[in-house]
């Protein structure tokens, strides 16, 4: 038995045991055993994925209720990489859940659904044919919907979120089902190897791929089918949010990669252009909404849309450059997409888990009422800070390496030989740059408002550091963000292997720490080559060297500061200066809403902002007694896209009510008529 097969069977067995244990055990035992089993499932998935990633093969065939229809699971290298990703996030989320999952999040139903959700997710990455893929996809969709609804009895908004989520996730399933049905009937088989034989230019292939991409970006939470994400992520229990954001939306990314890289790598460039447009809109819209969000988990959810957008930009640009003949740059872009995926998974799982810790410690998700948590929750603060750096794409984190690779590949795409491609890449660079800038602001806001300053409410003032398991999960995740950022070489070469491409190698004097993008070397004979030689022009990033240089600078500064410190020690004072106007009231601080005010003003149209200021005066207009300020930021896609659609559906439903007025005779007549129609169709 091969290692991969053993691993797949272990994952399956452990997940089923975990589901049974979640249903059978009592509350106290469940609190100990279920997270442990969850972590074991994750660890087994990491092991299996690593084996498949390094080239191992193995197959598990599952029978279905339909005779003759079986589902085969056999991960290839790319699937293995995503198994590692999902498994890693599962381990973190499960460890966090030892302390973090309480109350309704640790109910019997939740602990039955949790391992099944993970199993479905892993099944998607491991599937080797259409049936297996769809089976796992639906298990993932249903189990995650149950988890989102965990707290439905206590908070009514959870029900709305659950409905939106269930609707959108089933829409995504139907689209994927339709897409695969079209492709499978055109190919005459359901295995990946059958689908890979399709002609990419054929009309049926185009229709199938269009449906599939739409279904996958719905799962990935891209604009305009992102509406479930900012509802479901905040309302789900935090370890489930982490799993959904860091791992489940990656199922959508995996689906996109499966179609455009693995199955049909020679697709026409409009697939890529469509992905580029969707990705750009998602990136900019997502980060704008995140920038103005005041709910911490909602902010993180919108930032997920942004990150998915960047990943889609990378994949789309790769597809376009490859279709236009610049294969090497396309390869580098694909590597950038995978680096973005892993960097986002590491950062976002930590961010959601620490946001859950903040929620436990204070009972608050509202940034406007948080503040000063850095002193009371130093571990959580540190982990959130590192992950926020990663999400903002600053050195030396995984996010920085990924964005650097993406930008380098984009500026080298096109060139004077292909100005049209150059225009595309210039637009893509603009999107990435604006997104990166706004992400910087968003995460400075999230970190600064929540952890610095003074507490803005009693809940924030009474905060305390969370339990050991929560801290451990956050710290390990933060170390992963830093590790992938400091030593990205091995990860980059592993990404190259997973994708079956070339053009990116490890570099650096120590540990092969850096990344070298040989695939985007300038054309021979360029002016720069004459001046410096070609070798100097190949983009190289060695974060370890950058870190050492920064360390050298900091050592010099610290030396000077230490000398000065002996001469004049720091003195603590009661109040900040505040230009002589400091008051003790923490209400005078900037809040998350006020922090984002310039952004709201500049981008008021795409954000759909409505605000009203009411002033109550006494006697004279300049004696103000009270002022009230209201501001609402809406999701324009929801407001102008979904609401009219839902209203129309409701109208059709209302009209349909005339058909059933409660009379049994009429119902019998309907049944009879239907029967006749079916008979008529069947006899034809």
């Amino acid at each position, binding site marked *: 038995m091969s290692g991969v097969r053993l691993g797949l069977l272990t994952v399956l067995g452990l997940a089923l045991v975990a589901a049974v244990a979640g249903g059978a055990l009592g509350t106290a035992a469940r609190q100990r055993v279920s997270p442990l089993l969850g972590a074991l499932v994750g660890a087994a998935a990491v092991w299996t994925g690593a084996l498949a990633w390094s080239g191992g093969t193995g197959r598990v065939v599952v029978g279905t209720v339909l005779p003759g229809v079986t589902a085969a699971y056999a991960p290839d290298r790319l699937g293995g990489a995503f198994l590692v990703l999902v498994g890693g996030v599962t381990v973190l989320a499960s460890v966090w859940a030892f302390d973090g999952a309480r109350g309704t999040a640790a109910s019997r139903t939740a602990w039955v659904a949790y391992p099944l959700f993970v199993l479905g997710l892993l099944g998607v990455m491991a599937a080797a044919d259409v049936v297996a893929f769809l089976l796992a996809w639906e298990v993932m969709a249903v189990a995650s919907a149950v988890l989102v609804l965990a707290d439905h009895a206590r908070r009514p908004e959870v029900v709305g979120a659950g409905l939106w989520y269930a609707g959108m996730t089933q829409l995504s399933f139907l689209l994927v089902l339709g897409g695969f049905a079209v492709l499978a009937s055109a190919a005459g088989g359901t295995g990946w190897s059958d689908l890979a034989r399709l002609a990419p230019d054929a009309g049926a292939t185009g229709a199938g791929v269009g449906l599939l991409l739409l279904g996958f970006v719905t799962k990935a939470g891209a604009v305009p089918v992102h509406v479930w994400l900012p509802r479901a992520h905040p309302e789900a229990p935090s370890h489930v949010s982490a799993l959904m954001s860091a791992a489940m939306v990656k199922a959508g990314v995996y689906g996109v990669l499966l179609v455009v890289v693995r199955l049909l790598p020679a697709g026409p460039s409009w697939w890529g252009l469509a992905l580029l447009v969707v990705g750009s809109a998602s990136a900019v819209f997502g980060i704008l909404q995140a920038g103005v969000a005041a709910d911490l988990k909602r902010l993180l959810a919108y930032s997920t849309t942004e990150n998915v957008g960047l990943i889609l930009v990378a994949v789309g640009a790769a597809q376009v450059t490859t279709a236009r003949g610049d294969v090497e740059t396309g390869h580098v872009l694909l590597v950038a997409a995978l680096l973005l995926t892993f960097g986002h998974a590491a950062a976002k799982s930590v961010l959601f888990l620490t946001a859950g810790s903040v929620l436990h410690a204070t009972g608050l998700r509202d940034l406007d009422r948080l503040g000063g948590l850095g002193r009371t929750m130093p571990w959580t603060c540190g982990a959130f800070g590192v992950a926020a750096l990663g999400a903002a794409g600053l050195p030396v984190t995984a996010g920085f390496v990924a964005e650097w690779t993406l930008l380098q590949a984009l*500026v080298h795409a096109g060139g004077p030989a292909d100005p049209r491609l150059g225009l595309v890449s210039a637009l893509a660079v603009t999107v990435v740059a604006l997104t990166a800038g706004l992400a910087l602001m968003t995460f400075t806001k999230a970190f600064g408002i929540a952890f610095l300053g003074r507490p803005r409410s009693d809940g924030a003032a009474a905060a305390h550091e969370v339990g050991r398991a929560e801290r451990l999960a956050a710290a390990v995740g933060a170390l992963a963000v830093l590790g992938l950022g400091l030593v990205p070489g091995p990860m980059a070469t592993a990404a190259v292997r997973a994708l079956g491409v070339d053009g990116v190698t490890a570099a650096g004097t120590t540990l092969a720490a850096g990344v070298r993008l040989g695939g985007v070397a300038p054309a021979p004979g360029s002016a720069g080559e004459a001046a410096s030689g070609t070798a100097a022009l190949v983009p190289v990033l060695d974060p370890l060297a950058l870190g050492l240089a920064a360390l050298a600078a900091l050592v010099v500064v610290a030396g000077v500061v230490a000398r000065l410190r002996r001469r004049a020690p720091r003195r603590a004072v009661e109040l900040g200066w505040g230009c002589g106007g400091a008051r003790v009231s923490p209400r005078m601080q900037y809040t998350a809403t006020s922090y984002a005010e310039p952004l709201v003003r500049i981008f008021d149209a795409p954000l759909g902002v409505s605000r009203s200021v009411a002033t109550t005066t006494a006697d004279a207009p300049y004696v103000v007694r009270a002022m009230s300020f209201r501001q609402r930021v809406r999701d324009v896609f929801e407001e102008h896209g979904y609401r009219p659609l839902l209203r129309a559906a409701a109208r059709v439903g209302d009209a349909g009510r005339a058909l059933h007025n409660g009379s049994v005779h009429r119902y019998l007549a309907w049944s009879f008529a239907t029967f006749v129609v079916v008979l008529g169709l069947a006899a034809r």
Partner: protein
Amino acid sequence: MSGEVAGEVRVVVAVVLQTVVVVVAAPFLVGVLRQVRARWEGRVGQGLLQPWRDLVKLARKEPLQASGSTVVAWVAPVVVLGSGLLLAALVPTVTTAGPARLPADLFVVVSVLLVGTVALGLLGLDAGSAFGGMGSSRHLTIAALVEPTVLLAVYALSVPVGSTALGPIVEGRLADPGRVVAPAGVLAVVALAIAVVAETARIPVDNPSTHLELTMVHEAMVLESSGRDLAAVELGSWLRLSVLLALVANLVVPWGVATAGDGGPGLPALALGVVAVVVKTAASGVVLATAEVFMAKLRLFRVPELLTGSFVLAFLAVTGSYVIG
């Protein structure tokens, strides 16, 4: 082999020399800016040495820390200064030579710059005063809007060379002076210059000498810092200003900079490089200060218009570099 090692040593020496020169000269540049402004306004001015005197005075004083503020109060100034030092080492001001493992890649340079930006932004939020938050919010908004201009200008500058590393870009301009006056190059440098003005909080984006809190951006964030914390923030910001000004000067007038050559730059080349960069940067400082005297600070919500304009220039530069080279 020994020749290679000697070359590496020379490069490291050159980089350290470059950093020291920038650190020593940065306060003088600020002195030049203030002095030129004073003369234009008919004042005598404080002299070129005053910024240095201020720094020494601040460094010797005890810093005050309000209760409720965190380690950020002293870590952020150190990070701002550290980021400034790293910029001074990376960006080719005196010499285009750099360690092979750590090329002055413009994307890396920008990210080092942004680390300083974020540290300042967090410093503003730390003490929990209204002004600090206000400054931080504005500062980060401007940084976010500048980002597209900067990266597109980088893109435009990289097209003729095929690399985003600053060393080859400057050397390429030195080897082919026609590129300095090529339309795409000019547009890119103008866009970059506007971005530099915004990043370093100069008029018309921010007024460095304002005393009115409600109009402050940069100054509002450092209101709560004192003593050596303030000294570190000030020196860090000045380093940023000097390095970016010197970079723009080197892009416009690349002559005099010490090139890498074979086995690292020699001593005479470095000496020439120091003189050249001091002259060039001082001259651009005079131009900047003069322009500032005749300009008013823009309202905060007019700044996006300016930055959109600079973005359009950068975008034209990119497309132009493909069409007309």
